């Protein structure tokens, strides 16, 4: 077995993707000038958040997110052993490497961390309340951004005579800057709490592993779970709407499977109209929910693709008619949680240990809602608004002849969008022909071809020399990358025994036919009783978890979405297998042993 992965400098561009580097910020590329450093690091592909090749503008949020994470570790909190996460883009894909803190700095960092992180833990709930206000204000501010076409002449009262001294050309550029500023601010907010949340969770995790060396990971996860979290709210709203449709006798309207036909029928009755009103009420904000990770403008968002929530609601209506109970068994989950906590506590040697255990468990539960909920507020809701505003700007440029589709704007890097806006501003101000309409269409076509070539490339899971032992806490926790999974990647897929190994994310053993899904568009293919095999899953896939028997993913750890949802639904799950989607084919019979993290091809 090899002891290292290929160097990033050994990996050629896929055929047809030559020159792909021009699509991304220069600083996000591997480069000869930094080669010694880059070759000394271990890079892994972040399939949890960025499983697909990035389009140029979409890389903005990738760069904002990872840099904000790093900033909190290094400059705000001084996480003692961990500096930031460095990132690169190779062949369009996101690669990360954890950067350790220098040994000599650790002592000084400990004191700072105790002070700063300690303050957050002490005041968690107050700070979290503030965070909720900040994030809602941020969304409101995003919503004020409006990219309207520049007027023939400026408004006399509003602009000229008001003495404002600035015009619409300035404002459209200022609004674009504002959008970028708010996007970066959003990611600052995101990491204000997240790593602290994980640290508290890890501490509880470490305590449990010391107390009970053989305790299953999911026992620890179950002790913390059972709290109502907003991340599940969109799915809960679907269920509520399904129940409302059935109870008010308009359930039949969903039988057609067509949104327009359904709405036609609904509008014909008071109950139907009441249902539509209720749907609209749920939609803001809860259906600002992406079918993917939220990091791609192409991820479908429920509120803009109502056929998605409609189809889920129709499924739930069918299940209700069959007499199924859609409610998440919260009481049962809590009772089981309390039983597990009590039984482990009983096994501790002393009352002092039980006190420490309860303290750590308490903190883990305090941080848990943020760890779960931030995902809705940041990646789903706020990102949905950002993508909408960007499409509005793209549409404006379509009208001005810069390109032909609103989403073509995402083939521009974020700085290029600023250039194009200035081009537009200049041509409007003068007036004189803009350069964009003769420059961008061909350039966008060229980039579209490169991106297509990048998309057909299967990213290598890792590059460079892996550390002997993976100890970086966030790598293990957020990305599920362990010494074992790296070993499995080096082994290159299923072993001779036809087995794939990953994290034992949710317990139980089942056998059944596989359904391999690569994108959210395919989730309607999933049939009752199948085993879902996917690169990763997203919170908005929740409605299909009632159909499937188990889940297998390429990426993700104990706290990944698939792991959390499967535990809630009582389905076995193995996450972070590395190669499930390239090894398993739809229709293959597989056995998923979620208790041991093993997937077997039968």
């Amino acid at each position, binding site marked *: 077995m090899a002891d290292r992965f290929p160097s990033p400098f050994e990996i050629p561009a896929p055929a047809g993707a030559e020159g792909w580097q021009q699509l991304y910020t220069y600083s996000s590329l591997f480069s000869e000038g930094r080669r010694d450093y880059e070759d000394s690091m271990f890079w892994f592909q972040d399939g949890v958040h960025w499983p697909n090749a990035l389009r140029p503008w979409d890389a903005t949020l990738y760069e904002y997110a990872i840099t904000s994470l790093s900033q909190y570790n290094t400059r705000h909190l001084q996480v003692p052993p961990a500096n930031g996460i460095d990132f690169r883009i190779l062949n369009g894909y996101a690669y990360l490497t954890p950067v350790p803190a220098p040994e000599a700095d650790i002592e000084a960092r400990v004191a700072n961390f105790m002070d700063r992180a300690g303050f957050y833990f002490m005041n968690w709930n107050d700070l979290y309340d503030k965070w909720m206000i900040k994030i809602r204000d941020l969304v409101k501010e995003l919503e004020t951004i409006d990219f309207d076409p520049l007027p023939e002449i400026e408004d006399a009262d509003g602009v000229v005579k008001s003495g404002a001294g600035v015009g619409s050309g300035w404002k459209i550029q200022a609004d674009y800057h504002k959008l970028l500023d708010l996007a970066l601010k959003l990611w600052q907010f995101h990491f204000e709490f997240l790593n602290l949340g994980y640290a508290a969770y890890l501490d509880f995790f470490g*305590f449990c592993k010391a107390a009970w060396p053989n305790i299953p990971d999911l*026992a620890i996860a179950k002790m913390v779970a059972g709290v109502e979290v907003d991340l599940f709210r969109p799915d809960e709203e679907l269920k509520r709407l399904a129940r409302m449709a059935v109870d008010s006798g308009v359930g039949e309207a969903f039988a057609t499977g067509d949104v327009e036909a359904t709405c036609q029928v609904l509008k014909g009755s008071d109950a139907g109209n009441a249902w539509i009103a209720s749907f609209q009420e749920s939609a803001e904000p809860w259906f600002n929910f992406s079918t993917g990770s939220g990091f791609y403008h192409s991820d479908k968002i429920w509120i803009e693709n109502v056929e998605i929530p409609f189809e889920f609601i129709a499924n739930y209506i069918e299940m209700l008619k069959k007499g199924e109970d859609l409610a998440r068994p919260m009481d049962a989950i809590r009772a089981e949680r309390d039983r597990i906590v009590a039984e482990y506590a009983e096994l501790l040697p002393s009352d002092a*240990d039980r006190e420490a255990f309860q*303290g750590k468990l308490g903190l883990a539960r305090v941080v848990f809602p943020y760890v779960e909920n931030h995902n809705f507020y940041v990646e789903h809701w706020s990102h949905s608004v950002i993508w909408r505003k960007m499409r509005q700007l793209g549409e404006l440029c379509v009208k001005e002849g810069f390109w032909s589709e609103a989403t073509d704007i995402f083939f521009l890097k974020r700085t290029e969008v600023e250039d194009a806006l200035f081009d537009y501003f200049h041509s409007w101000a003068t007036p004189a022909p803009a350069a964009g309409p003769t420059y961008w269409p061909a350039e966008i076509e060229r980039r579209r071809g490169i991106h297509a070539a990048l998309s057909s490339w299967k990213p290598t899971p890792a590059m460079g020399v892996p550390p002997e032992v993976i100890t970086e806490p966030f790598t293990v926790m957020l990305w599920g990358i362990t010494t074992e999974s790296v070993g499995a990647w080096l082994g290159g897929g299923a072993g001779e025994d036809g087995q794939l190994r990953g994290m034992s994310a949710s317990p139980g053993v089942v056998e059944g036919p596989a359904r391999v899904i690569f994108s959210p568009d395919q989730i309607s293919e999933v049939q009752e009783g199948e085993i879902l095999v996917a690169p990763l899953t997203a919170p908005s896939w929740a409605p299909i978890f009632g159909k499937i028997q188990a889940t297998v993913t390429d990426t993700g750890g104990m706290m990944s979405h698939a792991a959390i949802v499967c535990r809630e639904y009582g389905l076995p799950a193995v996450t972070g297998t590395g190669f499930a989607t390239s090894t398993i084919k739809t229709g293959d019979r597989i056995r998923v042993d979620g208790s041991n993290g093993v997937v077997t091809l039968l």
Partner: protein
Amino acid sequence: MTSHIMWFEGYWDGLKLEVGGKAASLGEMTGAGLPVPPGYALTTSAYRVSRDAADLDATLARLLHGLDTRDTDMVTDRCGRIRTHIAEMPMGPDVEESLRQAYDELCRRSSTNDVPVAVRSSATSEDSPDASFAGEHDTYLWVRGADAVIDAVRRCWASLFTDRATCYRVEMGYEHRSVEMSVVVQKMVRPISAGVAFTLNPSDGDRSTIAIDAAWGFGEGVVSGEVTPDNFLVDKVLYEISRRKVAKKEVEFTLDGGDHVVKKPLEGSRATDACLTDAQIKAIARLARTAERHYGCPQDIEWAVDADLPDGENVVLLQSRPETVWSKKVADSPTTTGGADMMASIVSTLMNPLNSRKS
């Protein structure tokens, strides 16, 4: 008809005197969710009605008249005759019928004809005059068929009159009527697999773990070390199987065509297959945990999966005793680093996240 039968699951404290110590213990365990191999007790009432119907007192009076307890030949002769008499005397009303019905029921539960059983005497009381002779009372293994069971029951009754017990009562002036006997009839286990289990992990003392060693057939090979057993670790709270090591098992202890245990080489996939299903592993773990709770300290148990019993009822407890190695050690405290100070502990966790990695 008067039934003189108490099934183990029908036991309650008030029956202790009627069924004797051994049957009471089996009944208590069954009631506590510790499933011993199924069976029943023939109560002392059966002995009393049989004794009275056959006018045993008259026979005793005749044969014990003028007994010189120092004359061993005389004792051997007289007591031998008493035992022969009891072994041949007709049983009292309904006793035989009770025994036949219960045996048929046990066969039905075991889905087999002529199910082999153990027939054992069960002393009626700890402080009864014959208590100290309990060891001399008879035990018959691999008894098959109702006739053979009835015969074994009579011989158990007869064992009240061993030479020593009889002399003791005569010397102490105890009434022979004061001793009574209950008899336990219990299914012989014919194991698919058997072994031991500890309610902690013997390699690291982890009390959240149940460790199971298992091999095909009887548990002798596991206990003696002649077979390298399959080894399973089960979490005590979730009942998740956290480790499974399936060994190559060279031999098994099994029954020859009849009722004799023999050692046979294992061939083919049986040698390398796990000898327990997941459901059986979990049932054994639950059984071990129940025993630990029942006895209030870590246990070391022997168990078997009985081939004759239906799935879900076939894991049986053969023995449970306190675990002695780790139980005596003071357990390590998990709060050694950082102590109760939350921040110090979080720093320590981040600095040394080995515990955080999946082992």
